[in-house]
């Protein structure tokens, strides 16, 4: 660990920890998403808790076991659980069961405007507002990731052997396959929708340029990549999985092909486990295996700022409120830090 970071750690508490609130929930924080004025967090005890500055979180007993997946949906959140339930939850505690898959887990969820999507096993289920019955999309192996493009016209489904990109035309979904050997997990579209990228079971990420299916193999990580986030106008795809936040440039015609990533936010011997963009800035929050979080600009000459000191439990989620005023950090032991990002708040 470099000397600056050690110095920062010696002061025990960071500025954000001093002015923020710490909640010990006692179950791993699995997912966090931002709704209009709150941050919703799913936990390993099946609860979803809605956090807002200045008040205690509101707890909704949602699932029997683990909240496996979560996304925002209008003013609500959609959750999938290991109790087989796909739920729509509001912060006042109202739970609507969209579907019950019984003993099958609901592994992934996604939404776009009034469309609700989840996966259970090899099947993706889609509900749209004007249709009573859900549509289904079948795949050759278990679905491991779901992502809409920004227009909601394409849905990327990651699985063993690659990604199926479904395109919606005249109410019909048609499939296009992007193949690469190995098992693909979380998937994302680049903001300009020119690329799709997956985190693999191996220690690497894989991307495809959508129009010609050109492959981008990004490897060299010492561990699995559990998290990525798009940062800035370039944009950079910032990833966890290394002792730094690894930032791949996706500008120009070729994106990161043949280029080296920028590395920022060095965690010393700790590995990055979660990354989250600071909206509107060329900066990223990086959470590490020891629970610490750094804020760094995508600029190797700038020093990172310590946001949260070590808790001993790996950072599993970070969310920023929709007005960019609050940050929430959660870890695998269920400790939550909610704090204002700016000193004036």
């Amino acid at each position, binding site marked *: 660990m470099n000397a600056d970071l050690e110095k920062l750690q010696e002061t025990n508490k960071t500025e954000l920890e001093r002015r923020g609130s710490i909640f010990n929930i*006692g*179950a*791993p924080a*699995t997912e966090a998403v931002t709704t209009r004025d709150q941050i919703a967090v799913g*936990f*390993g*005890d*099946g609860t979803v808790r809605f956090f807002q500055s200045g008040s205690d979180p509101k707890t909704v007993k949602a699932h*029997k*076991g*683990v909240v*496996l997946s979560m996304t925002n949906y209008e003013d609500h959140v959609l959750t999938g659980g*290991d*109790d087989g339930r796909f739920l729509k939850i509001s912060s006042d505690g109202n739970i609507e069961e969209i579907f019950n898959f019984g*003993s*099958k*887990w609901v*592994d992934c969820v996604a939404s776009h405007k009034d469309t609700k999507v989840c996966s259970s*096993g*090899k099947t993706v289920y889609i509900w749209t507002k004007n249709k009573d019955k859900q549509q289904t999309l079948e795949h050759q*192996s*278990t679905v*491991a990731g779901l992502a809409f493009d920004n227009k909601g016209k394409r849905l990327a489904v990651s699985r*063993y052997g690659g990604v199926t990109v479904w395109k919606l035309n005249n109410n019909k979904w048609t499939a296009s396959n992007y193949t*690469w*050997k*190995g*098992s693909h997990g979380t998937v994302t579209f680049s903001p300009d929708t020119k690329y799709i990228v997956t985190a*693999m*079971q*191996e*220690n690497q990420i894989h991307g495809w340029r959508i129009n010609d299916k050109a492959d981008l193999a990004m490897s060299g990580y010492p*561990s*699995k990549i559990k998290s990525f986030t798009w940062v800035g106008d370039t944009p950079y795809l910032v990833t966890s999985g290394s002792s730094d936040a690894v930032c791949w440039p996706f500008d120009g015609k070729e994106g990161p092909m043949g280029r080296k990533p920028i590395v920022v936010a060095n965690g010393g011997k700790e590995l990055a486990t979660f990354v989250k963009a600071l909206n509107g800035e060329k900066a990223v929050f990086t959470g590490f295996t020891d629970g610490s979080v750094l804020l760094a600009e995508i600029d190797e000459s700038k020093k990172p700022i310590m946001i949260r000191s070590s808790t001993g439990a790996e950072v599993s989620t970070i969310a920023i409120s929709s007005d960019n005023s609050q940050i929430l950090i959660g870890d*695998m032991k*269920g400790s939550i830090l909610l704090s204002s990002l700016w000193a004036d708040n």
Partner: protein
Amino acid sequence: MHEGGFYRTNYKEIDMENTSQVPVTVLTGFLGAGKTTLLNRILTEQHGRKYAVIVNEFGEQGIDNDLVVDADEEVFEMNNGCICCTVRGDLIRILSGLMKRADKLDAIIVETTGLADPAPVAQTFFVDQDVADRTKLDAIVTVADAVHLSSQLVDHHEAEEQIAFADVILLNKVELVEDNDIVKVNDRIRKINPFAKIIKTTRCDAPLDEIVGLNAFSLDRVLDIEPDFLESDHDHEHDDDVTSLSFVSDTPLDMDKFQDWFGNLLRTKGQDILRSKGILNFKGEEERYVFQGVHMLMDASPMGPWPKGKNRSSRVVFIGRDLDNMNLKEGFENCKSA
């Protein structure tokens, strides 16, 4: 852990002191052997422990319990150039989900279908870092039907592999078989796998603590093998029969020589070596080293000091096909320190 110690390719050192790893028992056996009876016992008996059970959807049971997880057996090839590296993709996903639970599990039991090769399931615990960090393969338990095992061994090579892979074998339904036939089937099992613990049961009525949570693959058993079975058996009928070999040395081994020999052996012959295990006495090392392998992959680590009053002898065992053509004895002898 020793700096630079032991063989470092294709294996990850396991921290046997790390109690936060949840033990996982792999349960194999043919349809009808009694796996469901055992699973029902695990789920319903008042044992005061929390066990999660991962069942296959093609299995025979309709067990309804919060801690039962349905799985498809999805065997995935890794994209790492190792031809042997097939893993259970569904298992990686489910184990990672179970590790997010607020309540801690005492053990996890994974059921596999009768016709499934046990290797991918075992390899998942060697290959996937997240799985290896949070769980450990405790034992492979095979439920065998005392009535039908002999014919299954003739008709299905999967039956032979399930016996070969096992650390514990429940020889079930013994009440339906004459005593001398039990001896015969017992001997047949011993020919394939002399090292597994055989428990004769009626309705899988063995104590659960002899099946689940055995800790470290019951490696100590390697030292307690009945000598009768250590004689290499050369009268098998087919070249692809599964056999076993074991070697003992009272002379301490040279660690570098052993690493070279064993690493190369697994790399080149790993496909035919179903299981390898051993306890090793290295020259200049105070601690015992233990290892266990499945095909080309293995775990190795020091396991504390030698028990007082016990001989510091090294022993390695192999279960596999075509073992006679691997120069195992010569290779092992060459590892003795000068």
